[in-house]
């Protein structure tokens, strides 16, 4: 069975209807376990105090903000190369979810930064790249709504997505590219190295990351189903007008 069968809207609707309840259930369980564990059952950090509890939402949402854009890029490339409508609609469906995760990461980052860095915001390479990514999300959503013809909108937003990918990559690797600024490099990938994150935080953080990934998948599936129905609705209304 080919992967491209799922690009058929009818097949996608059938498969997603079966998969969605499982994904929603797993997302709810892992988010509840991870967030309750992180908030109630982890100790204060010797340096950061109780603000370390913000890591359980800040890190997964920041990761997913970038990964959502990467998913949109892949879907956009599939649209440009193979012209599968479901992939363009999936990219469109993912944008508001990615924007929300980006907003959460920015807000929680500011709330964490104020007591730790003494400032809500700094024009640090990573923070600046992340803010520009948020603006790209807004532009992407606006462009979809501004263009009437859906295929033209899909083409234009796919190109915008490719341009914005520069900032998605920069927001992840800016700390490595420019070794300056307030934001630290990733800690969760340092397991086994000299200064790893303590297991007391690492395990619930991984559970939270899994939860946010599943939440993203569930929301994108739900929203893609809505986009497919909306596309069919537009086609039927257009046929009605011509009749």
């Amino acid at each position, binding site marked *: 069975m080919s992967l491209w069968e799922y690009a058929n809207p009818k097949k996608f609707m059938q498969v997603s209807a079966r998969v969605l309840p499982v994904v929603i259930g797993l997302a709810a369980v892992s988010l509840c376990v991870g967030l309750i564990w992180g908030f109630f059952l982890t100790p204060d950090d010797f340096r950061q105090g109780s603000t370390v509890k913000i890591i359980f939402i800040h890190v997964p949402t920041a990761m997913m903000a970038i990964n959502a854009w990467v998913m949109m890029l892949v879907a956009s490339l599939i649209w440009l190369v193979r012209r599968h409508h479901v992939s363009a609609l999936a990219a469109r469906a993912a944008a508001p979810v990615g924007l929300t995760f980006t907003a959460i990461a920015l807000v929680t980052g500011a709330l964490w930064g104020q007591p730790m860095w003494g400032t809500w915001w700094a024009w640090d390479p990573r923070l600046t790249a992340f803010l520009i990514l948020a603006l790209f999300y807004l532009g992407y959503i606006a462009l979809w709504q501004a263009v009437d013809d859906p295929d033209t909108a899909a083409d234009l937003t796919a190109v915008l997505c490719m341009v914005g990918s520069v900032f998605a990559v920069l927001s992840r690797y800016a700390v490595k590219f420019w070794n300056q600024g307030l934001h630290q490099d990733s800690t969760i990938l340092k397991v086994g190295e000299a200064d790893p994150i303590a297991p007391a935080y690492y395990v619930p953080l991984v559970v939270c990351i899994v939860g946010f990934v599943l939440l993203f998948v569930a929301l994108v599936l739900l929203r893609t189903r809505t986009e497919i*129905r909306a596309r069919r609705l537009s086609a039927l209304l257009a046929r009605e007008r011509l009749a």
Partner: protein
Amino acid sequence: MMPDLGRYAVAVLSSYGATLALLAGLVALTLWQGRRVKRQLAEVEARQGQSQGKHDG
């Protein structure tokens, strides 16, 4: 059994509160849009005499 958040209580609680509010808004918007489009599609399909939920799984 609320943990003692000390002097950072406002920062931590605001972070969790803002996150839950934004996620709740996103989920509510997603469900509302989904139901509205599904209802509109069903109405138009019924009007045009086509089988309902042709694309539904």
